[in-house]
């Protein structure tokens, strides 16, 4: 009887064990190996002593703060604009109008398309030889396509942000749309009868209800953008580069001695990311309960 009870208690953990094991090996294992390498422990190339030297090298590098700022700025503005646009689209798409189903479908189209394909699409659209520049020149709004502003490989990272917007707006938008649909119109109707105008209903009624959805999705988006390298590598300037590109370049360098520095950058990136996300979550929780 006692044995049966024990088996019953262990049933769920045992069922979860295979996937937990894989997750632990891949994530925690990778993190531990990365941490070890960032601390200078890499026996395969003869580094057997733990040291903070690589962290000191990275943190005292003149380019570090610049790269950190570029990384943060791209992640912050991409997340901010994505969130604002996603909420706006969700507010429109929750209404029933002629073509609303088609509009919702079109809104979801970017979701399964890979980031690299999206980046290529943006390049084709917004470079000086791109579709928009040529179109504007053809209709006479520009003297020549080369008058079109530089949006790709620019220091502001506009093409990078545009690519992330195209990909992340539907992601956040669909979550917010689902929340809005589950909330229904009753709270807003009630607020109207209590004298709340359009903006008051948005800020005091809808926002607190959709904020948890916004917070969780924007955390995912920020963390993803903050740590991803492929779009800044494809569409960004060579200098200053983002921290993930810095880490990636060092990682794939044939000189294995650069590997510990790549790992140090990655670990720093992870720690900063965690600190920012915890701070953001706390702020959001305060905003919900205030």
């Amino acid at each position, binding site marked *: 009887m006692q044995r049966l009870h024990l088996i019953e208690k262990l049933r769920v953990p045992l069922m979860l064990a295979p996937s937990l094991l894989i997750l632990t090996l891949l994530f925690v294992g990778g993190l531990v190996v990365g941490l070890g390498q960032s601390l200078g422990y890499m026996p395969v190339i003869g580094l057997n002593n733990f040291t903070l030297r690589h962290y000191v090298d990275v943190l005292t590098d003149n380019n570090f703060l610049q790269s950190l700022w570029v990384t943060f700025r791209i992640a912050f503005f991409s997340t901010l604009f994505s969130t604002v646009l996603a909420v706006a689209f969700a507010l429109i798409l929750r209404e029933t109008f002629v073509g609303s189903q088609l509009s919702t479908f079109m809104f979801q189209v970017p979701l399964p398309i890979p980031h690299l394909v999206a980046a290529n699409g943006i390049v084709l659209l917004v470079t000086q030889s791109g579709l928009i520049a040529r179109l504007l020149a053809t209709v006479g709004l520009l003297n020549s396509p080369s008058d079109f502003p530089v949006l790709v490989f620019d220091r502001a990272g506009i093409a990078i942000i545009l690519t992330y917007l195209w990909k992340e707006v539907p992601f956040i938008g669909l979550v917010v749309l689902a929340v809005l649909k589950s909330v229904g119109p*009753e*709270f807003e*109707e*009630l*607020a*109207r*009868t*209590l*004298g*709340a*105008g359009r903006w*008051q209903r948005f800020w*005091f*009624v809808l926002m*607190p*209800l959709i904020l948890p959805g916004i917070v969780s999705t924007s955390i995912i988006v920020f963390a993803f953008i903050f740590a991803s390298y492929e779009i800044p590598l494809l569409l960004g300037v060579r200098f200053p580069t983002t921290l993930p590109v810095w880490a990636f370049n060092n990682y794939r360098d044939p000189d294995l001695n650069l590997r510990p520095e790549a790992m140090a950058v990655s670990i720093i990136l992870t720690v900063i990311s965690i600190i920012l996300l915890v701070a953001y979550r706390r702020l959001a929780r305060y905003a*919900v*309960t205030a």
Partner: protein
Amino acid sequence: MTTVTLQHLTRRFGNVAAVNALSLEIQSGEMVAFLGPSGCGKTTTLRMIVGLLLPSGGDILFDGKSMLTVPTEKRGAVMVFQKHLLFPTLTIAQNVGFGLRMRGLPQNEIAARVTEMLELVHLPGFENRRAHELSGGQQQRVALARGLIIRPRVLLLDEPLANLDANLRLEMRELIRSIQQELKITSIFVTHDQEEAVMLADRVALMFDGVLQQFDAPRVFYERPLNAAIARFYRSENFLSGIKRGSQVETALGTLRVTSSDAQPDGPVLLTVRPEDVAIGAGPDNNRITAKVTAVVYMGTHTQLQLNVDGRAWRAEGPADFTAQPGDTLSVHLPDKRIWLLPTES
């Protein structure tokens, strides 16, 4: 203190008229119940009054002024919904003070009025609690306080007691009635429960299929319904066809004398008597008909009899100790003052 006037108010959904040419006037400080079965248009009417739904035709007037172009948030009509809809992220005080906050009142004034309102709904000291910490009845009282705090011109209650259990419903009815009488706010509430309408309302507007059937004091629906459908809705199905001539009605079971002879013109009529007015057993010799007992149900305080009267199913109530068997034939007395005449059904 606001008078609400509905003039030929109509709302169509496609080809279906959910509310059809509804006209009535609600006096200042009056409590009116919109009563009727589900889908009869009562909530649609309420939503038009508050401005959440545009009418297809007709007008809504507050103190003689049309409200059609006035947005919901400026009408001064507050709606308490069937679901309490307390904002989950706010405390009870913040919920109650929501309307005042939207009006930009200072915090100290909001706090003072919230305290006053929570006392009015018998929830003093609940300011810092959250909605999930309250029972269903308490949540509905908070919703009521939230509506009342802005001192609305018109209070609209959409089946506010529907989600409460029987005891709480009774308690809330008394609370709503006492507050309404104290504050004298023109109030309209929607219900499908006749008992609730009778207990709470000064007047009842009974609706079937989007059409107003009768707008009267609750007592009138029991004693002088305008047609058989209304009588049925008030659980009176005792009907007998006859021909009215003056103060007498000739039926297949004999001639019956009626007092309310001016209710219908001479000619074919439908006679009705409420089950509790059918006198079983001894009594006056006049106005007697023969009925066959089909079922006897002991109800504790009385005995309910199901009768067959000229092929129609009747109900009657006798004393608790009344004994009869299905198949018995009874002679029942129909008091002439309790007989009401209706038009025949088409």
